[in-house]
């Protein structure tokens, strides 16, 4: 490949755009932040960020045609990365305060509130990485920055799952399947470990 990897960062009104864009640039990518499909579809790779509530993020995504964009992108075979709520919306459903919201359905299963005493799960936690992970290459034993109260408790059977634990509850920390990858934690806020993970992803 010639020149830096061109990454599209989907802007649908969710937080952390600035941080994600800067971290990707620091990892060597040329980043464009937009909701314009024709611009995004010309990039080499796509990132879906997300902060806040599942339902609010889905509403924001739908307002910019995110469902169609992500579906088209997945079938194009090019790399896709979801971060935090961007990871959560890749699941079939999200349940918040008893209200079910349809996700993008790339993964089977539901995102729900962690059944633990202390929420949000906030801070630097360790992860259990499967041996074949490319995303976590060189990152054994590192901690990543999490801040969330909701998560997928069960991993899709056909994806490579990295897990983490808060109190006694195990949950999905990251997934890799074909050209789709996603993390519950924030690689853009995880210092040198997060930077290495983003470089690993850009090299995929």
């Amino acid at each position, binding site marked *: 490949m010639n020149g830096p990897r061109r990454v599209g960062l989907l802007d649908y009104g969710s937080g952390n755009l600035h941080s994600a864009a800067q971290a990707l640039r620091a990892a060597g990518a040329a980043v464009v932040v937009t909701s314009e499909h024709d611009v995004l579809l010309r990039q080499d790779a796509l990132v879906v960020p997300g902060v806040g509530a599942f339902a609010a993020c889905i509403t924001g995504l739908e307002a910019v045609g995110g469902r169609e964009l992500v579906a088209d992108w997945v079938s194009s075979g090019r790399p896709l990365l979801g971060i935090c709520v961007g990871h959560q919306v890749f699941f079939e459903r999200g349940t918040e305060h008893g209200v079910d919201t349809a996700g993008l359905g790339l993964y089977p299963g539901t995102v729900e509130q962690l059944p633990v005493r202390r929420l949000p*799960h906030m801070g630097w936690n360790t992860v259990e990485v499967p041996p074949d992970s490319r995303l976590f290459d060189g990152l054994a034993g590192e901690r990543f920055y999490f801040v969330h109260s909701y998560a997928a408790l069960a991993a899709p059977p056909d994806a490579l799952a990295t897990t983490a634990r*808060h109190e006694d509850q195990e949950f999905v920390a990251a997934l890799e399947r074909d050209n789709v990858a996603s993390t519950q934690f924030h690689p853009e806020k995880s210092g040198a470990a997060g930077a290495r993970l983003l470089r690993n992803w850009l090299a995929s």
Partner: protein
Amino acid sequence: MSVALRVIPCLDVHDGRVVKGVNFQNLRDAGDPVELAASYSAAGADELCFLDISASSEGRATTRDMVQRCAETVFIPLTVGGGVRAVEDVDSLLRCGADKAGINTGALARPGVIDEIAARFGNQVLVLSLDARREPGMPSGFGVTTHGGRKSAGRDAVEWAREAVDRGVGEVLLNSMDADGTTDGFDLEMLRAVRKVVDVPLIASGGAGTAQHFVEAADAGADAVLAASVFHYRTLTVAQVKEALRAGGHTVREGVVA
């Protein structure tokens, strides 16, 4: 394994510059904020807290510009407090690269603003910055203060922490105005009193003088420990604090990839 105890250097910012001073008097310029932030991050800080003490809206705008430059080079969580009164204030801080907003006087003046901010951005974005001191007559013995501890807000500190969490703050930054500036150690009594009523992460602040003080705060139930002067004056490094915490049986973030 579990979440690591966070060590958080705090930087006082005035018109976009990091300053040192005692009780906001005799402010001295303490160097380039972005360089300072980067050096704390390289030293192993788990998060950074900026407290904006600018009085004017121009000063706050300059500070936001500084936070933006910081977020371009420092890839750990950034909390920014000072002057947050409405949803739009949090929005503008997030847009310039802050991950969390600290709220203090704005929430005391109108508690409902917590609900509004949490509904828009989620609980995790909002930190209650609680300046408290011993106040006879308050049910818990601790009262909320404003104006750097000089004025009583007429509210019980423990009760206010509980209400703020119920309304939707995702974290409580407890600053003891009795301990602040003493370097005699964190206010463990106050810390335990607030820990009893809140399940969200609790950050201990005020009074740090030695590495052992941080261990005591962790033992008393803090999820994170924050300090300004011991780091600025190089009395302690972040690494020394983490070493003491580790020796005291607490989990800290260690390995940093090349």
